[in-house]
């Protein structure tokens, strides 16, 4: 369980391995905020290899999105499986984020 951070042009790509839950949400928050403070403004969080996100994980995505927007940037999401998409739809967070089917589509035109 962890996070892989890489660069794709001027976009920071964060790939979540395993789960995004109360036990590791602070690690993701810290990594993204460090990139934001260093000047990055475009972020994609990819969930291709993610099995589960709990409410704390959803909360940290909301919090990060808000901070990034305040700095003039954007946080996009990609590759939600059926269960994860259900959680976003139930909580209406699918209306708050731009969600792409794949990370390549999320990166297109960013």
């Amino acid at each position, binding site marked *: 369980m962890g996070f892989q951070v890489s660069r794709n042009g001027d976009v920071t790509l964060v790939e979540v391995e395993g*789960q995004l*839950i*109360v*036990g590791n949400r602070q690690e993701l928050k810290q990594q993204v905020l460090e990139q934001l403070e260093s000047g990055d403004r475009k972020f994609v969080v990819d969930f291709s290899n993610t099995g*589960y996100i*709990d*409410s*704390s994980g*959803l*909360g*940290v995505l*909301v*919090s990060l999105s*808000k901070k990034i927007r305040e700095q003039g940037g954007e946080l996009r999401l990609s590759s939600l499986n059926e*269960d994860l998409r*259900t*959680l976003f739809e*139930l*909580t*209406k*967070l699918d*209306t*708050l984020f731009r969600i792409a089917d794949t990370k390549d589509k999320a990166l297109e035109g960013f």
Partner: protein
Amino acid sequence: MIDPIDPHQTRPRDLILELPTDVRTIEHAVDYVIGRCPACAEQARRLQLNFRVGLTEALSNAMLYGNSRDPSKRVLVEIAFQLGCIQARVTDQGQGFDPRSVPDPTTPENLTKPCGRGLFLMRKLMDEVCYNDRGNQVTLVLKLESGGILEGGVQA
């Protein structure tokens, strides 16, 4: 030790766990419970989504808000695998809270708040969510009839 549960409220219990207030234990505890459910194979999605979310959120709430992250306090988990349903009861050692005081996180004014979705998800994904009067114990029920549709609309 956590106080014994009122015997008049006690249902048959197939599994009892007592956890420390440490959020790192939640994932393993939920995996352990799901791995021992006799209906795993034919109820995969209802267990892996509905029950996993419900139990995880109940444990998170118990540790973060009920026990206020106090490592000296414990969380009791009681599981009953019954015909047609799973019951999970989670008890913390906190002062309790009024679940009616938690606002709807999907309204426009709450949508951008980072907290408040745990109880909402429990209610959406489980068939029953009941708190005791004190508000430190939640009982979750998930029905396991094949093809059933939850009140929240998530089909197994």
